[in-house]
């Protein structure tokens, strides 16, 4: 992995002829590779194992479903040992949010700490301050420079003023966690983590200068990938399945978002009534003698329950909804990557057809068609690997999200339970005392 070349030009991997540098990821990460005897394998790769019966030394079957050149085969032999915890050599955290007030604007910065043994970095440790804008810049740069990869999502850019307080502790903490997750995902990615813009983001004292420079020198690169104008006849089943899945998944996310919002609304309205209900017991107690304490007790209990419910509602707004929305944004960018892939394949197929129909041109196949073919294969490989990574992350994310939702509800009920349970003996004690005296 250390031999993954220089930090410039991941696109150089796409040039023809030279032995492929290992800029693109293999088919699977080491952790996702199943035991050869495992039944899961065939389910995850429909049709591929059956094709050749070839098994690579690491246990993965050779996927020969696409037109493979020897060089791209070599690519897939590379293991993603970056994901192996023992050999991880890049650690990134986002911490310590601080508010900056200037005459022009007020904004939050976060400290980004890096620890690394990679030679691509001049120093082993970095500590820089970055604001949301900078993260946004990084993500855009990654999308531009790594168009064959799925770039992790950022928390939402815009927040409705008046609805959410951009400077509240809760909001800032939610954002910090999401930004931290974003950087960790990039750092864990075998290709993205070596991106020069990522390097700059983590290390540069003054990002703005680098932004400008990067823009100038890298302007050319992204243009290479914009291959507009070719029509793809049919998306291969594998990627069509991805596209379909993303569409359905987006729908479900939208539905869940709406349900969560509705619940929050109903809970808020219930909270309003509860806030009125409790005090009535209090005003009742004011003209009772024996019943004074029990009624006050009930009022106090309801006040506790109100606070617990308010916390639950806030947590759902701040922690649950934003993650759902991140995923919806994420999926939009993923669909774009799928479209770009279609474009690349379309270009290849069109050029190939043009060659095939010209009878005077026999093999060797012209170099630019070969170039296209390589691009297709690399794109497909990158995308598949990233897709698997995405599926894993998605599963973890949603497991965490939904478990968190369950936890918050449990905590809410536990608070209420404690309040009511502590009230009952108080009510009953009085009763016994009464029984004795009367």
């Amino acid at each position, binding site marked *: 992995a250390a031999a993954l070349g220089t930090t410039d030009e991941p696109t150089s991997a796409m040039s023809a002829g030279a032995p492929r540098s290992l800029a693109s990821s293999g088919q699977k990460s080491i952790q996702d590779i199943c035991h050869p005897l495992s039944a899961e394998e065939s389910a995850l790769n429909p049709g591929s194992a059956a094709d050749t019966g070839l098994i690579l030394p690491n246990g993965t079957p050779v996927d020969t479903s696409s037109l493979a050149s020897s060089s791209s085969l070599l690519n897939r032999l590379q293991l993603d040992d970056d994901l192996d915890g023992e050999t991880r050599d890049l650690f990134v955290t986002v911490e310590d949010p601080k508010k900056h007030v200037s005459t022009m604007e007020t904004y939050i910065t976060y400290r980004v700490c890096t620890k690394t043994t990679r030679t691509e970095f001049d120093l082993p440790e970095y500590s820089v301050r970055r604001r949301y804008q900078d993260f946004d810049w990084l993500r855009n740069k990654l999308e531009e420079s790594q168009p064959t990869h799925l770039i992790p999502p950022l928390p939402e850019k815009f927040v409705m003023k008046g609805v959410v307080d951009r400077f509240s502790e809760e909001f800032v903490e939610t954002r910090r966690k999401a930004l931290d997750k974003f950087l960790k995902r990039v750092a864990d990615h075998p290709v993205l983590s070596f991106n020069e813009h990522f390097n700059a983001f983590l290390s540069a004292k003054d990002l703005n200068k680098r932004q400008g420079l990067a823009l100038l020198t890298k302007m050319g690169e992204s243009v290479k990938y914009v291959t507009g104008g070719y029509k793809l006849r049919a998306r291969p089943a594998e990627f069509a399945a991805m596209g379909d899945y993303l569409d359905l998944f987006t729908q479900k996310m939208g539905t869940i978002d709406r*349900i969560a919002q509705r619940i929050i609304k*109903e809970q808020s309205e*219930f909270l309003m*009534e509860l806030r009125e209900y409790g005090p*009535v017991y209090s005003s009742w107690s004011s003209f009772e003698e024996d019943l004074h304490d029990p009624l006050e007790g009930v009022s106090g*209990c309801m006040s506790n329950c109100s606070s617990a419910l308010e916390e639950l509602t806030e947590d759902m707004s701040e922690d649950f909804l934003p993650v759902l929305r991140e995923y919806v944004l994420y999926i939009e960018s993923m669909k774009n990557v799928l479209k770009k892939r279609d474009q690349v394949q379309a270009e290849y197929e069109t050029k190939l057809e043009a060659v095939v129909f010209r009878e005077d041109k026999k093999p060797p196949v012209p170099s630019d068609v070969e170039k296209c073919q390589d691009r297709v294969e690399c794109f497909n490989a990158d995308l598949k690997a990233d897709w698997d990574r995405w599926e894993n992350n998605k599963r973890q994310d949603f*497991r965490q999200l939904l478990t968190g939702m369950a936890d918050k509800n*449990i905590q809410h009920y536990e608070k209420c339970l404690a309040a009511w349970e502590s009230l009952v003996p108080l009510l009953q004690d009085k009763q016994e005392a009464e029984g004795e005296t009367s």
Partner: protein
Amino acid sequence: MREREMQSRGTDMPTQERKLLLKKMEISVAEAEKRTGKNAVNMQETYTVYLIETRPVDAASEGTNPVPDSLWRRYSEFELLRNYLLVTYPFLVVPPLPEKRAEFVWHKLSADNMDPDFVERRRVGLENFLLRVASHPDLSSDKIFYSFLTEENGWKETVFETGFQAKADSRLKALNATFRVKNPDKRFAEMKHYGDELQSVISQLLRVRARAADRLYGVYKVHGNYGRVFSEWSAIEKEMGDGLQSAGHHMDAYAASVDDILEEEEHYADQLKEYLFYADALRAVCRKHELTQYELEMAAQDLTSKKQQREELATGTIRTFSLKGVTSKLFGQETPEQREAKLKMLETQIEEGEELVKERNAECEEFVKSAWVDIERFKEQKDHDLREALISYAIMQISMCKKGIQVWNNAKECFSKM
């Protein structure tokens, strides 16, 4: 209030214990049925009748377990019974009937009197009413009450024969007394004020509770939508599918659980409603006191003026303005014979007046004494019952929280297996 509780309360009063009807007889309102018939204006109507079952206590304990005596009564007959008791025992806080129409409903409950849930809650309320009357030291020995429970036919006629309707105070008379009474017993004035406040606060409580119940219903039911979407989502997932699907089922269970929760809360609301109506009964006793006090004051005032008239007539001085005084000034004074006659009449009137004042004074004192005893009894009962109600409300909330924790733990387990 359950029968056993009623009976145990009876043990607080040792001497009257034996008098309590409830000690001798088991009473219950066992069933409700729909009937159709012709009403007063000869139109078809549908109404509900309730089955009152009675059985001597001894029989049950002997183990013979005979079939209970039973008869059917409709709500209007209960109302008639209560009105009779109100008029006949104005110094007692007469137990209230369950509400005539469903009030303080939240959206799911039907306000329809024919709705089976309403009928069932009314059945329970009517039974409660009978048990309360039967365990009251004074009311339980009333003959009309006894025949209400035991004589199906001709009971109505029997009630009317008592002529209680004629004894009822007119609203106007009562209102008049309330405004004009000068010296009501302070304790009764305080009690009336308490009754006002109690009625006001319980009304408010019931109103807000109903709104809160409506909202809570919404919160739970929307979670059911998670069930559906998790199911749909699980269909497009591989590893995550099972966990999502089962979690969805738990969300459905959560949504469904609110129905039982709110039904239990209705019981609590009914307990509050009983005391809402009790507040009215309490105020009625206080108003009756004002009336008797006012009538005493009127009689006393009348007596005083008569005495004054006598004095004036005897001494010849006119102190009070009277038409007679004016006319006699204008048209000349009366003859001695006329004066003599008048004096004699006045003397008789004064005698009668003194008798009346004595009578009314005794009435008033008697009323104050008996009423206050019952008010104290009522206070104790109220404190006990409402405390019990609050305890059971707290227990209800505890149960609801425990159920919630369980469901979300189940869902959490499913999520963690995703």
